[in-house]
């Protein structure tokens, strides 16, 4: 196993270079920009993703606001913004190829980018180790 990732239960990948939420979003922070997607655990639970409703660019969002919807054959899941700020970009590729979230949840399957308005919120996010614990808790249920 490489040092930059953790594999939970032999199947769920968690990357160490980013933060996580209780609701299974990941957020990668680069200066004042945050890139958001859903975790490998989330995409595996949702299974085959067939559609994504993307937020509008320019929308102001608060931490925890539902901003996108991921549709799988199984269910529709709200995606919550892990940080407050302004949506600056959305992943248009997902409109025609939503399965990118299944294929590459931490890369090409990113969903939206936010310009962070409150950097202190970062303290409320989970680091990789804490998120691994969270997955284990969810799986134990």
């Amino acid at each position: 196993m490489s040092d930059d990732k953790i594999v939970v239960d032999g199947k769920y990948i968690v990357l160490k270079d980013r933060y996580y939420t209780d609701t299974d979003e990941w957020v990668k922070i680069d200066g004042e920009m945050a890139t958001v997607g859903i975790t490998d655990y989330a995409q595996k639970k949702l299974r085959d993703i067939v559609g994504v409703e993307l937020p509008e660019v320019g929308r102001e969002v608060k931490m925890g606001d539902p901003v996108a919807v991921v549709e799988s054959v199984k269910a529709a899941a709200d995606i919550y913004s892990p940080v407050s700020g302004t949506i600056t970009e959305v992943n248009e590729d997902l409109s025609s190829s939503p399965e990118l979230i299944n294929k590459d949840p931490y890369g090409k399957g990113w969903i939206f980018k936010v310009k962070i308005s409150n950097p202190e919120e970062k303290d409320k996010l989970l680091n990789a180790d804490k998120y691994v614990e969270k997955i284990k808790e969810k799986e134990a249920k």
Partner: protein
Amino acid sequence: MFKSPLSSVEEKLNANFGEFAGWEMPMSYTSYMDEHMAVRSEAAFFDISHMGRLRIKGSIEELNKLIAKDLKSSQAGFMIGPTAFLNDKGGFIDDVMVYKISDNDWLIVTNAINREKDMKWITSNSSLEVQDLTFDYVMIAIQGRRVWDYLKQKPDLKPLQFVLNTSFLGEEVFLLSRSGWTGEDGLEVWAKPEIGERIVTKLVNLGLKPAGLICRDSIRQEMGFVLYGEDIDEKINPIEARYWVFSLNKDFIGKEAIIEALKNGVNKIRVGFKFTKGDRTLPRSSMPVMILDKPIGYITSSTFSPYLNRVIAMGYIETKYAYFGYSVEVNVRGKKVEGKIQDFPFIK
């Protein structure tokens, strides 16, 4: 929860497992869309070992009373169906496939969810002997537009014909039939679990794609096939479902109710809905279907068809609105999704 006897070989093929009707089964391998397209243009195989499989022995008269289609006009070595066990109100106890081995020896494939219910129903309504073969054999469906090219052979079987104790890909199998549930040509095989594992390996080596139950669901929806528990149940009759599983030239439980429904008409009827191309918002089961904001029915199944590149669904609407081509809407999380009433199948 039951587990497919093929799960260890499927794990090696990277199956994602999930629960269906009390069974842990492969839901998908790569993505259901790739698997779906493989069925429609190449060839794939499904583990359907969750399907209930019963061997019924006893008089044809007794079985013919329980089954809505006429078994007397059937030929040994052929399947009859889909047909159904109906209750006295004409509602579906189950929809099944019947295999005639001889006049007093039959096989019945049931929905996984109804296996035990069917067994109880048969024994409480007849003196037929019921043997459950479900756990003795795995069942594999091999389906696809180019299935014979991939298998490099075409067995000498007519559609819905089957043979017992035969050889398939060099393996001894209990049953081989020319049947499926996909709208494509293909075979279904029943074999002992260890033989089933070897067949799976051989199919993979021949280039057939393993496909999961999500793909099976999207494939059957394109054909307009119903799934028990989703689109039909004990409160739905075959007329409402537009599911022609009965023959009126003989007696069977539920026949009077069927005749009533035919004579008087039914208030609701099953139709298909196709939604705007490229729109990927899925109306979900039980969501109301509306015409100009007036509710006229509800959704029972939906999926995104990768073949048609659009969302398709089925459901029941009031019979008086059942005109193909009518525009309808479904309110999905506050968003109005527009579609059209469409007949089955969705694909040709």
